[in-house]
């Protein structure tokens, strides 16, 4: 079974926001809506201060709270793990937005394509589906890969099938130590952060 996931190598990310721009251009999101963003975080106290750039967005959780709370069934989860929103069903109640622990959901009246309904990162699902139809491999072939991953100048973002032991991201996860954000909440996010090489 295919399970799409994303990997961000925190050692490589330089916070350039190229992924943010690529996402905005590809998905035509309005001002103030960033399905992919890169946080600039400082941790510690002088003189021991560390800085990290952290890409965030929809984590396409295994057990997405946004889907459970949705009263209209607009939010669904595909068999390949991608969490989708049916913009024609969504009533824009924003219940999903308060249920998401990753602040990944938006609702904007300035969104010309999706006005006043919930929106979020789709893992560029149209690119994935179109690429698969052409026999391409998402995460390997750029045409079938999310725009943010393609655009990353530091090769910090990766995409692939986490269930396939020989996939690019499975190898990265095996070679490196990683974590997932807010794992204690039990949502099973499919966005992995690499922070050190494997011991």
């Amino acid at each position, binding site marked *: 079974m295919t399970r799409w996931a994303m990997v961000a190598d925190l050692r490589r990310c330089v916070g350039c926001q190229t992924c943010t721009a690529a996402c905005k251009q590809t998905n035509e999101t309005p001002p103030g809506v960033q399905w992919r963003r890169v*946080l600039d975080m400082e941790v510690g106290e002088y003189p021991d201060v560390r800085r990290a750039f952290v890409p965030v967005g929809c984590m396409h959780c295994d057990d997405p709270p946004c889907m459970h709370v949705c009263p209209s069934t607009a939010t669904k989860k595909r068999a390949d793990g991608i969490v989708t929103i049916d913009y024609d069903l969504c009533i824009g109640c924003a219940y999903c937005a308060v249920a998401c622990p990753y602040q990944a959901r938006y609702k904007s009246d300035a969104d010309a394509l999706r006005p006043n309904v919930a929106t979020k990162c789709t893992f560029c699902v149209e690119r994935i589906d179109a690429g698969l139809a052409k026999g391409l491999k998402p995460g390997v072939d750029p045409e079938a890969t999310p725009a943010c991953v393609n655009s990353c100048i530091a090769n910090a973002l990766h995409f692939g099938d986490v269930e396939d032991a020989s996939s690019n991201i499975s190898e990265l996860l095996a070679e490196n130590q990683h974590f997932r954000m807010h794992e204690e909440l039990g949502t099973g996010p499919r966005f992995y952060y690499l922070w050190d090489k494997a011991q």
Partner: protein
Amino acid sequence: MSFGPKAWIQQHWDARAALNFMLGGSGAGLLIAAALAYPASRVPVLVGLGLIAAGLGAVWLEIGRKLRAINVFVNPFTSWMTRESFAAVLVFALGAAALWQPQLFLPAAAGAALAFVFCQGQILRASKGIPAWRAPQVVLLIVSTSLAEGAGLCLMFTTTPLLLTWFGLALVLRGFAWTRYAAAVKNPALVDPAKALLQIGTVGALAFAILGYWVTGAAELAGAAAILTGLWLKFALVTRASLNQGFDLPRLPVRGAR
């Protein structure tokens, strides 16, 4: 100390959503109190239904696609918002019947009203992105505030000993629910409303309720104190205490490791 995107107050649900919890909760509580202690009158039923309708109307104004509101009924399997909507339909149907035959239908309407506020509590509990809402203790808090405010409202119509006793019990339950919730959730935005709730809305209201057995007007004052403090707490809970989860890095990147 860490710098970065810290948790912030959610901007998705504002006063309009809060009004659903405030007015809907009070209206439902009024139906319950009326069924228990004042079943002969139609006025509390009418007011209760009006408050619930006003709360739902307020939240309808908040949704992005108002003409699709009917889609709220689609997911009763997992969504507490859908379940709340079904409970509301039941409340209005049984409430309308109670206007015709109060003695016969008011207990059933009160049962539906209890289900309605239970769903409201569960709506908050299922909001996993807001730590102050997802605490399990929030359900009893929402239900008990509804019961106390509803009983307080009912005191505006009549002050029977049975109703005063129910009001007192609801206040004690609300005080207990708040204490239990506050032990689990520390939120600075709730400090002032909680003080008012405990001092004016519970201790003060109880004192006035006891006076209400002998002094005219004291019971109404007690009811007003319970209502206003309860409404303030719920307003603060939805709009002021709703810090989101924020972001967190359990590990920092080890530079130069590859």
